[in-house]
């Protein structure tokens, strides 16, 4: 089966993947699971972390990986359409993992490809395996999603993690706290969708206005290119930073997450705090992607 968008993943499927990921603990041997299967990782845009964790996941399952991490030197660079690239490569492999700058590229690939396609990020649209590993990390720390207060901070509009995470969380009774400057706030359509599903959504400008209530603080990076001037960027960059002072206001069991890479939205001094879970979250990419690959390849299209 394909993994294209968070919106199209049912609650049952999400729960099944989280349960399956729990089984794929490191140090155990799963090398017979997908033995003889070949995965293509097509990264039209580079993302070392995502590509490596998919590669590691496939190899731990006993499969093999081929692919590219930049379009330099590929037929894409010569002007080949995505449609043609997928038609050709899908004939060589058992599944395709794809990162692409255009939104909806993974859906298009899945429509053409006879083998399963996993979306590893398409523009700012979606990144479903990131959402799954985010959920996995939350579940590992709290057991249940119901009743949690989850703050998502930073670039909610153009970032590719905040929106799909919110959509997935709408399967449970959670309260979402959006913390962002107005120009990077969550789009109205998504907020309406969430409220229609019964999720409480609160929007605030400053971390101080939400921090005390939160069980999870999910940080995202604010990118300079989203602002018209450097001055405006610098003004906001300093506001959305987690440091010891912010952590001192948070609950004792609140967890801090971040899809990484971070720039300076989480101060290094927070890394030693037991509530800092972003490195654990990154490690969770492997068992979650093992679960996704196993499901995608075993349950053929």
């Amino acid at each position: 089966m394909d993994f294209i968008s968070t919106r199209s993943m049912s609650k049952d499927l999400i729960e099944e993947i989280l349960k399956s990921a729990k089984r794929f603990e490191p140090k155990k041997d799963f090398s017979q699971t997908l033995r003889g299967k070949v995965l293509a990782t097509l990264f039209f845009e580079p993302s070392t972390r995502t590509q490596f964790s998919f590669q590691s996941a496939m190899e731990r399952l006993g499969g093999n990986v081929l692919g590219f991490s930049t379009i330099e030197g590929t037929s894409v660079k010569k002007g080949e359409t995505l449609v043609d690239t997928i038609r050709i490569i899908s004939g060589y492999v058992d599944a395709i993992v794809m990162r692409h700058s255009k939104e909806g590229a993974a859906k298009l690939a899945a429509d053409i490809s006879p083998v399963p396609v996993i979306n590893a990020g398409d523009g700012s649209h979606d990144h479903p395996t990131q959402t799954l590993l985010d959920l996995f990390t939350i579940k590992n720390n709290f057991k249940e999603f119901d009743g949690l207060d989850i703050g998502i901070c930073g670039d909610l509009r153009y970032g590719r993690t905040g929106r799909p995470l919110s959509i997935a969380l709408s399967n449970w009774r959670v309260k979402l706290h959006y913390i962002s400057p107005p120009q990077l706030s969550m789009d109205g359509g998504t907020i309406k969708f969430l409220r229609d599903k019964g999720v409480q959504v609160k929007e605030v400008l400053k971390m101080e206005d939400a921090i005390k209530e939160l069980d999870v603080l999910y940080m995202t990076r604010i990118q300079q290119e989203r602002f018209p001037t450097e001055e405006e960027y610098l003004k906001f960059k300093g506001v959305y930073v987690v440091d010891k002072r912010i952590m001192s206001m948070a609950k004792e069991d609140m967890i801090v997450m971040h899809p990484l890479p971070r720039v300076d939205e989480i101060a290094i001094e927070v890394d030693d705090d037991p509530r800092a879970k972003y490195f654990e979250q990154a490690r969770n990419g492997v068992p979650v992607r093992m679960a996704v690959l196993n499901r995608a390849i075993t349950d053929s299209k």
Partner: protein
Amino acid sequence: MIEKTLKVQKIEEGTVIDHIVGGKGWEVVRLLGLDTYPGTVTLLSNVSSKSLGKKDIIKVEKKQLDKQEVSKVALVSPKASVNLIKDFEVKKKYKVELPEEIVGILKCSNPVCVTHFEPVQSRFTVEAKDPLTLRCVYCERIQTKLEFN
């Protein structure tokens, strides 16, 4: 005595699109390519109507609408109706209806949607009819403004 009103003639065979929202008939003419249609086309704009207040009517000689054309009319004017005429009589009358999926008629409003860059037709699912809410099948963006191809 000189006749001061010009009556619109009945058509012998063809299609009458009725109950188009007042003033929207011009857009329907353009979308269906009737501005270059070789046969007789009559557009009546802003005619009084009991149900709509003002409505537009289009009469086209020797033409039947295909599914894509009916979808186009429905996108512009969801309450329009279509009359098929033969021998000056209405042979069939139906309300326009949107299909569940709209293929190849509209452009996605998201400038970075893959449909603008690859050889593929646009596709939208109809999430709600009133108000009309369409979602791109590829980038999943809700369309706030309709832009025709």
